[in-house]
């Protein structure tokens, strides 16, 4: 399974948020640091 490499460009992606707005990782470039949290489920 591929994994993200440290100190390399993070793979860009597009998903729709739960409010229906498209979110591109690249939208944040130059704007904010990001903490991406890959959740295992709401429990």
């Amino acid at each position, binding site marked *: *399974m*591929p*994994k*993200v*490499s*440290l*100190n*390399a*460009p*993070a*793979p*860009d*992606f597009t*998903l*729709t*948020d*739960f*409010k*229906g707005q498209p*979110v591109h*990782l*690249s939208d*944040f*470039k*130059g*704007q*904010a*640091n*990001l*903490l*991406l*949290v*890959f*959740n*295992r*489920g*709401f429990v």
Partner: protein
Amino acid sequence: MAQLRHDYSEFVSRHAQIIIIGPEDAAAFASYWQQHDLPFIGLPDPKASVLKLYGQEVNLFKLGRMPAQVIVDRAGIARFVHYGHSMSDIPANTEVFALLDEINTPTGA
């Protein structure tokens, strides 16, 4: 998630946005966000496309996906990658803050 919520202002002060990506659908995200009053961006990924792209591990014996965290700096570079090996294998916020402080420090300063 509760710890991230509790310390959210600390993330904001470090110019960091929190994005939660999970396998549930939009309705489950909306319900959870409303219930917990979360300020984060919530991205449902029921097809697990990004979860797979980022290599989130599935542990069949422990019945689910393991938690993972990635810090991406403003240049789009992955500066911290952590793949959990158990449900509770999540870095402390203090560790994340230290990394963000390092990222926010101009080179050569």
